[in-house]
């Protein structure tokens, strides 16, 4: 009954979605304000019915209703409650329902926080979001209904959630990621709405900015969590694989990063107007492309969603419709738009332009590498290839190094024209950073690598210039602390975001160059030496978890004869799904991780054991979170609230008059 209620709510939500797409549009066309104003309540209705639908699926999981096929496939009565509830998005159907719910959530949020918009603009934006929701809901109802029943004979117990997914990572990673993916629908809707009005002014950039920043920050959190999860859960000690599905999340992030910078230039200076619109279209298109790649199964990936060509075709058709439609509209409407303002080559505009070119090129290169297996297969009559990480590293790293150099100089730049003297003053810090990094590497590193010195110098240079820039804003003030509070939240967002990038760069570079790892055959009592640590396998034993049994090793780590930590890596066997799972154990500290994972038994009571020493690996995710924090910070900027307040004031005045 509950499942049917969920199904029914979804159909109702579809009806509301159709109304939302159609009625306000008619209102705009006929200049009928009543119809335009319907957009708000229709958005609320859409969200509420999606929420009911989602809650019904959640209830089916909580209630172990194995007559629902999706629940039977992805849950089990012995599954701990938190995993039962996150199993909702553990596979295709439910995760798309979550995706659609989040789409409804963003739509509702736009309708609530759109105080500064004209009735006409608000109606257009919400109608476009409604139209997108229609696509997602049709997709669920036609190809992947999570509410399908297995009747009359249904299994007594569920087939269990894939053990890899029985983890904290599943609880947080997909919702954050989807918040980001779907969040890019908001700037997309703003861009399309603005195109339809034909007035591509800077106002749309001001409306889009907070939304874009938040969506982008969520995507950043999602990707960071995904990387961290892969690191501790997959048992390989890797944190990024250039896997097709990772790329699918990374491409919208790259485009989104270009977009938030370009929006800043459009808002502040009115430049790059049409380019920014194009980026907004592409950011969301890449999100959809990601969904297509993940769910159609056209690419081999470690994220093996149950794949289905029919679903792939549906998303592909939707993708073609969205991209084709929006680009056509763009082509028709954008020709008359000119950016009026000129700028010097030293201006902040130039740096943002370079940032955009590099990021878009990087996204293009990642796209090429991701799709090349498909292209190659089509060109060579079915020959299968894979494109390895060396390709991505070879293309991506040089582009990023250029970008980082620009990043180091840019905070001090000015709109229109940066005084040469200011630019020149950015470079002494480069030499200082080089000296600091080189002496650190010489003092602590086991071997000296020019690449590490170069890249970490860039990272430190970025930080040094950020600090200097902040200092320059308060240096000539008498009251220094209040001066710090006078800076805008947008400015602090930029500081945090750039600082986060620097921290991530340092983490990535140091981890990549100084990781030490060994795969060994070890029996109880054996000792292995790695990076100055001694790993001793004390014993192997059998333990029993709530829904698995496991072989557990006790590995004691010594440094110079002193015991540092005891690690307990496990090899789990999940009885219901008959899956074997590696559960690595990690001793994390700020400057290094010790990572131990069990391989398989290799005879004579010996086990294959993988040990890693990974310096600075935490910095990668810590930096990622800082970047996201920066994104969230910018939304608190007084400027965006000021718009609302002045409008409210205007309304009050109107009433008084």
């Amino acid at each position, binding site marked *: 009954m509950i499942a049917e209620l969920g199904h029914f709510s979804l159909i109702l939500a579809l009806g509301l979605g159709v109304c939302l797409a159609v009625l306000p549009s008619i209102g705009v066309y006929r200049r009928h304000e009543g119809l335009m104003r319907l957009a708000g309540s229709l958005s609320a209705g859409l969200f509420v019915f999606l929420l009911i639908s989602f809650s019904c699926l959640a209830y089916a999981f909580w209630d172990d209703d194995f007559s629902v096929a999706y629940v039977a496939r992805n849950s089990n009565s012995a599954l701990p409650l938190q995993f039962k509830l996150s199993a909702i998005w553990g596979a295709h159907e439910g995760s798309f329902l979550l995706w659609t719910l989040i789409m409804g959530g963003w739509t509702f949020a736009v309708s609530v926080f759109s105080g500064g918009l004209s009735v006409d603009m608000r109606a257009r934006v919400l109608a476009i979001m409604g139209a997108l929701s229609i696509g997602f809901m049709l997709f669920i109802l036609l190809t992947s209904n999570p509410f399908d029943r297995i009747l009359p004979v249904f299994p007594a117990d569920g087939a269990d959630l894939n053990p890899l997914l029985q983890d904290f990572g599943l609880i947080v990673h997909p919702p954050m990621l989807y918040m980001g993916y779907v969040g890019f629908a908001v700037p997309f809707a703003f861009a399309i709405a603005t195109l339809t009005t034909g007035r591509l002014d800077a106002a749309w950039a001001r409306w889009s900015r907070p939304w874009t920043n938040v969506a982008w920050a969520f995507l950043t959190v999602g990707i960071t969590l995904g990387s961290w999860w892969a690191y501790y859960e997959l048992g390989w000690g890797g944190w990024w694989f250039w896997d097709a599905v990772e790329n699918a999340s990374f491409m919208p992030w790259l485009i989104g990063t270009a977009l938030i910078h370009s929006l800043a230039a459009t808002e502040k200076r009115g430049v790059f107007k049409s380019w920014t619109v194009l980026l907004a279209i592409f950011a969301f298109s890449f999100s959809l492309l990601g969904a297509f790649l993940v769910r159609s199964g056209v690419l081999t990936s470690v994220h093996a969603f149950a794949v289905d060509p029919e679903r792939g075709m549906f998303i592909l058709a939707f993708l073609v419709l969205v991209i084709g439609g929006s680009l056509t509209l763009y082509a028709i409407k954008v020709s008359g738009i000119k950016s009026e303002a000129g700028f*010097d080559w030293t201006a902040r505009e130039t740096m943002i332009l370079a940032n955009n070119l590099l990021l878009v090129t990087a996204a293009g290169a990642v796209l090429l590498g991701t799709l090349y297996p498909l292209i190659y297969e089509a060109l060579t009559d079915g020959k299968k290839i*894979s494109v390895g990480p*060396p390709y991505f590293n070879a293309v991506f790293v040089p582009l990023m190094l250029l970008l980082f150099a620009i990043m180091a100089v840019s905070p001090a730049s000015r709109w229109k024209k940066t005084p040469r003297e200011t630019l020149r003053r950015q470079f002494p810090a480069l030499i200082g950073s080089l000296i600091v990094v080189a002496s650190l590497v010489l003092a602590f590193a086991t071997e000296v690598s020019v690449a590490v010195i170069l890249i970490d110098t860039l990272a430190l240079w970025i930080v040094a210039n950020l600090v200097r820039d902040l200092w320059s804003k308060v240096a000539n003030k008498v009251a220094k602390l209040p001066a710090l509070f006078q800076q805008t939240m947008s400015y602090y967002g930029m500081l945090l975001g750039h600082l986060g990038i620097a921290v991530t760069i340092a983490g990535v570079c140091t981890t990549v160059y100084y990781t030490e790892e060994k795969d060994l055959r070890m029996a109880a009592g054996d000792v292995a030496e790695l990076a100055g640590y001694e790993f001793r396998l004390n014993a192997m034993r059998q333990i029993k978890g709530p829904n698995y049994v496991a072989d557990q090793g006790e590995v004691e780590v010594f440094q110079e004869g002193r015991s540092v930590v005891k690690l307990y890596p496990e090899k789990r066997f999940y009885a219901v799904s008959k899956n074997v799972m590696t559960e690595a154990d990690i001793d994390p500290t700020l400057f290094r991780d010790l990572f131990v994972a069990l391989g398989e038994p290799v005879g004579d009571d010996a086990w294959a054991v993988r040990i890693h020493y990974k310096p600075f690996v935490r910095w990668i995710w810590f930096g990622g979170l800082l970047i996201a924090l920066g994104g969230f910070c910018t939304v608190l900027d007084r400027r965006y609230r000021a718009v609302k307040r002045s409008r409210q004031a205007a309304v009050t005045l109107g009433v008084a008059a």
Partner: protein
Amino acid sequence: MKFGKMKPQRRNRLMIVGLVVLSAGAAVSLALTALNENINLFYSPEQIVRGEAPRNTLIRAGGMVVENSVKRSTTDLQVSFLVSDMAASEVMISYVGILPDLFREGQGVIARGVLNDQNVLIAEEVLAKHDETYMPPEIMQTLAESKAKAEKNGTSL
């Protein structure tokens, strides 16, 4: 028209176009070079047995792991096993390291490595996929082809 006397807007536009062309050209050439060096072709067991696969280049090979073919060293992590297209052809794969959790006899795997003179693939990576029911497309195609061939020849699998 002299460059120095151009309107700032026009000069900017020219600069932008130049930047775009330069960076796009650099990126494309960089990308294509890197692509050519880093693609790994997939070969089926049959192609390898017939000597169609190149030696001393990184390739990918895969198939179903043959039952009882997994042999382990008693001193280190060396392991070897046969992969089959479930018809006539089998290829030996040799690997030093830890096999993935889903590696099992009778399951599909893909290995990346170099063929030696004995037609043994010296693997640097062995992949088995997350999902029990998931079959890498390469192996699905190999199996389908060998099955089709077997049916044409009137032999059953």
